[in-house]
């Protein structure tokens, strides 16, 4: 089955992301990364 390619829209600040998560009844995924940006 083909899966549509998606780009992850990473945010850079946790606190606003948690507010958004509360509003959307989602979780936050917090990635501590050293990968090239």
């Amino acid at each position, binding site marked *: 089955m083909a899966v549509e390619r998606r780009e992850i829209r990473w945010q850079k600040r946790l606190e606003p992301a948690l507010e*958004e998560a509360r509003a959307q009844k989602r979780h936050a995924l*917090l*990635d501590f990364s050293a990968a090239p940006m």
Partner: protein
Amino acid sequence: MYPDPRVAQLIEQNFIPVRIHVKEQADDFKRLGAKYGAQWTPTILILDSSGEERHRIEGFLPAGDFIAQILLGLGKSAFTRGDFADAERRYREIVDKYPSTDAGPEALYWAGVARYKATNDPSALVQTAASFKQRYQETSWAKKASVWG
């Protein structure tokens, strides 16, 4: 990072994703790394909307293993908030779609517990113990489930 479209889709559908880069956001990394005890990259945390950690993935994983860990975290979070049906659904998805990952036996164990918590029917645990006699026999989860069978 995360080139597999299944990973991107799972993240987009379930999370508000936040990336803190160790060098480019050094101050944030120091502050949040201290708060959550992250001392290595990649460290990936599943947080509920109040910021409580529900699951942790440390180090690189191939896509299938990573997806299974994400589902495990979503299952744990659902279990913690008492949504046992959703927790079981997440755990069963791991067992069905990613059975050979490290998350597989843990998910099978907790799927049984979640069903028991949802139904109060002890046969859910007996059936889980029976399942462990067919698969994952050498794991610690099989030992834990052995008291039910």
